[in-house]
């Protein structure tokens, strides 16, 4: 479902939705990377309007799943890093 694009008066806006899964934590880094952890195997960002490409992945049995959003305005997509991947240790 496309997300209505709304921005609150204080500047908060919806970036994307998570299709399934429960987000449990978020960490934003100085280089613009954002890590999102969820505790459900099918947690994934859906693709909202004007937010670039999102990668949809389903996975079973591996929790937590961690989504990484790259910081560049020109490279705004999400990739999945599971808990066994070495890059997960960056979070």
């Amino acid at each position, binding site marked *: *479902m496309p997300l209505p694009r*709304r921005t609150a008066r*204080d500047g*908060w806006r919806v*970036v994307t939705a*998570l299709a399934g899964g429960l987000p449990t*934590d*978020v960490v934003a880094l100085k280089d*613009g990377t954002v890590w999102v952890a969820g505790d459900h195997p099918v947690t994934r960002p859906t693709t909202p309007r004007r937010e670039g490409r999102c990668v949809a992945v389903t996975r079973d049995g591996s929790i937590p799943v961690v989504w990484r959003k790259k910081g560049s305005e020109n490279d705004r997509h999400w990739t999945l890093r599971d808990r066994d991947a070495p890059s997960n240790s960056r979070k």
Partner: protein
Amino acid sequence: MTASAGGSVWVFGTNPLPQGNELRLARWDGRRWHKIPSPEPPLPEWEDPRVIVTDLVATGPSDVWVAANIEVADEEPGYLLLLHWNGAAWSWQRGSKESGSGQLVPDGRGGFWLTRVEKDDLQHMAGRRRTPVRLPLAGDHGVNLVISQVPGSTRVWGVGVESETEYGNLIWSSG
């Protein structure tokens, strides 16, 4: 634990004693620890409260805010206790019953954001004024939100469990 401009690191904790909760703040200046006088906010002693620190944030070289949850008689989520150390003295605000307490995250402009307080999606503190924030597409009863600031910026990201609306769990951004 939090860090402030000037290289200080602040830690805060509570020590539940038989005669009451002892609240402690200390500052590390890079070489040694400095003990800060303990605050003595009024607590509902007749209800045998437990003070649980949920977060702290430094908004200036000597400005530190501490959020705690005062749990009384097994009630959830308890009262918010918001403490402020200005470098010389403590002051505090106490929330209403079941106001709760969550994260304190800098806004990059000298204020900070509070999560899981008083059934609001979010609150913003500027000066000594707290303002409720309504997140777009959130339901009516507050989002179970976690947030993170991009260090050194005014940008903050949040993720939340939203079961009341058709949009499910959402990711927000500000700044």
